[in-house]
């Protein structure tokens, strides 16, 4: 698998969440994703960027164009140094939220991605990686 150099974007304000959506869209189009797949990865990115902001106290996203077995795709890595998630299984459940949200962000973005990875340590932060292939 080849990975192009990733671009890093800061997520500090709700305006940054809008920028993340626009940048993910540009990369999804470039990777040749169809309209529905573009919409899915942009929506998942929006959910995860908001989580990074609201629950992680801000952080970053790395956007990569990837290629494997002749398929192109987009990989997004969201990282924060917030309080971390105590019970990941519970946090993944639809309807569960520790804040003001609807509790659809993590579970929903997993459904919208082809690959989903989450890692979190209490007091250290959370990392979520999603990939959508063409």
């Amino acid at each position, binding site marked *: 698998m080849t990975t192009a150099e990733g671009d890093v974007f800061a997520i500090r304000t709700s305006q940054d*969440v*809008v920028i993340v959506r626009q940048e993910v*869209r540009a990369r999804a189009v470039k990777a040749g994703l169809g309209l*529905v797949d573009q*919409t899915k990865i942009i*929506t998942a990115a929006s*959910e995860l960027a908001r989580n990074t902001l609201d629950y992680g106290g801000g952080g970053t996203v790395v956007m990569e164009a990837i290629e494997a077995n002749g398929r192109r795709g987009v990989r997004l890595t969201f990282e924060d140094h917030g309080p971390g998630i105590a019970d990941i299984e519970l946090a993944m459940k*639809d309807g569960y939220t520790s804040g003001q949200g609807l509790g659809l962000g993590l579970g929903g973005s997993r*459904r919208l991605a082809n690959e989903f990875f989450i890692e979190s340590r209490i007091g250290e932060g959370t990392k979520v990686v999603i990939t959508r292939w063409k």
Partner: protein
Amino acid sequence: MERIPILAMGKALLITIQVDMHDRLALALEEDLTNRIASTGARGVLIDISSLEIVDSFIGRMLDNIAAVSRVLDAETVVVGMRPAVAITLVELGLSLTGVKTALNVERGMALLRSQCATRRGTHDHRRG
């Protein structure tokens, strides 16, 4: 701060969302619209989202809230113009907008509002009579 414009047309309020809204802008729209319904006595609200490339859980919740609040203030809300890719994504995300009436386009949305308002007016008259 920028605002989403709200147009009044007869007894209806029209909103066309043409920008990629950040969360605070969405909250401001919810608040502005609630005030406008109360101040104008509008009976219907039509929200055109045909320009929106995505609807995430935040915007989805905003639409749900607007519909719920306007119902309490005696107005009906119709959301029109949702793109097919957005609809597919929204359902997969886990949001089905059960509290929101939808129509394919502005024309059908206005027709739906007119028939809703007519029915409700009829009911009110009946009660009064």
